[in-house]
Structure formats: structure tokens, C-alpha cells
């Protein structure tokens, strides 16, 4: 399975990359903003995408909407600092499959990804 990491913080991108090392996920790209992310989605159609919401230029929700238009099969895991419920619900509405609040540690990622990836196998 292929993974795309979208976060405006390079530290965050690298943290996610590091913590998801144990999964059988091939990281095919990272993006620091929505536009860059969409380019990669168009080109490589990643199976799984982690997506931040607070980003410059294009925010995560808009980006999510576009991703779903291009590549509806993508399983999007929102990883955001925005802790309010409505943002999460909006993300689900737009097609996200998982939702995580920052700060996320390795354990949180593991649990959320177990859930995200297992569901599909069933």
C-alpha cells in the first residue's frame, strides 16, 4: 500500500513517516500544502493519505474535497491540531476515514492505523 503524508510542518511529516515505519506502507510522497498534495494524488493515487487541516494556501478540508474528486478510493486519515468536533465531522462528511487530534505519538498512530487498515480487510 502506498502512503502520502500531507502536513505543513516538515517535522510533523518526518515524525509520521518515522512512526509508520513498521507498517507495510510505501511512502510515495510528502506534501507541505494542499496544492502539492493534489499533484501527487493525481499522479500516484496513493492508497492512504494523512492530511493536516491547518495549512497555508489551501486548508486540509478543501484539499480533502479535491482528493475525493480525483481519487475517491483513498483512505484519508486526518491528523490535525484542530480539536473541535465539527471539523472532524466535516472531514468525515467529505470522505475521511479516520481522525486524529494532535499531538499524536507513535502509539496513537498505531492504534488509528490499525483501525483504518483493518476495516478494509474485513
Amino acid at each position: 500500500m502506498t502512503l502520502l503524508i500531507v502536513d505543513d510542518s516538515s517535522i510533523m511529516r518526518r515524525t509520521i513517516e518515522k512512526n509508520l515505519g513498521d507498517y507495510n506502507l510505501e511512502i510515495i510522497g510528502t506534501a507541505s500544502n494542499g496544492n502539492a498534495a493534489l499533484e501527487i494524488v493525481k499522479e500516484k493515487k496513493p492508497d492512504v493519505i494523512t492530511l493536516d487541516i491547518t495549512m497555508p494556501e489551501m486548508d486540509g478540508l478543501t484539499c480533502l474535497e479535491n482528493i475525493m474528486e480525483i481519487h475517491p478510493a483513498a483512505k484519508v486519515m486526518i491528523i490535525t491540531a484542530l480539536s473541535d468536533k465539527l471539523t472532524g465531522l466535516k472531514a468525515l462528511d467529505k470522505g475521511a476515514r479516520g481522525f486524529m487530534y494532535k499531538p499524536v505519538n507513535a502509539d496513537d498512530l498505531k492504534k488509528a492505523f490499525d483501525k483504518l487498515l483493518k476495516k478494509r480487510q474485513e
Partner: protein
Amino acid sequence: MDTKKEDFETTCNLFIQALENYFKHLTDVTSEIGVPYIKESDTLSLKNFTGLIGISGNRKGFVYISADKSMYVDLINIFIGIDDPTTEDILDMAGEISNVIAGSVRANYGNNFNISVPIVFEGMPKQLKFPSEVAVFVIPMKWKGHEAFLVVGLE
């Protein structure tokens, strides 16, 4: 007056909790909160690197976290295991912390508590204007021997 006080305490405590949770959750090392104080906005407490989030919507103001390089270096080392981060990495880290802390507070104020993308800077900003009517609370903190300021300025 009491409800207003509750509100204030809640707000401050939300930020403090968010900060404490950040370090505890990600590093397993707890942070210590020092004695907070009120500050005139023209003389800000700043360390070397600062990540600032502007807040708009129902509440207006800002929150920033300011710390010396060494704290960010430590954090980056914990997160991604590199020893010698670039200045860009340091600024990125400062922005990420402030983003997470401001974002955490949003849970309690909803999506009308809008937070900006982080504004990061090294040293004193050349041009930064804070609303003058805002009381600025400085919450000093320590984590692994590093000092930092969590500064909250809200209407």
C-alpha cells in the same frame, strides 16, 4: 464577575493543559509551570525562537510559545531522531507546537475560534502589533531544564 473569572481561568488552564499534555503525551517528560504574570504588551517576554498563532472569531488575540533553540533541538531529536536540525527545522517545530496548543483549545470554543497558520520568527519580530486592550498573561514553563514562555493574549 464570577463567570468571567471562570472563563478566564478556564481559558488559561486550557492553554496550560494543552501545553502540559503536549510534552507529556509526546515526550513522556512532564513540564513544570511557573508563576504566571501579567505583562504590558509593549514589552514582550521572548526567547530565541517563537511560534505565534493569531486567534480570530469569537475570541480575538494571540498565543505564542517562545523558547531557546536547545528545547526545539531536543524535541526534534525525540520526534525524528536527528541531532543537528536546521534553523528551518527549529522554526517549523516552534510553529507546530503553537499550532497544536492553539488547536487544542479550539475544542472548547468551536470553529468560531479561528486560528491562523503559525507565524514563526527568530529573536524579536520587526513588525508585530498586538491589540492594546488585551491583557497578556505570561506563563513561564520548564521542560527538561529548558525554559519557555507560553504567552496568551485574549480579549
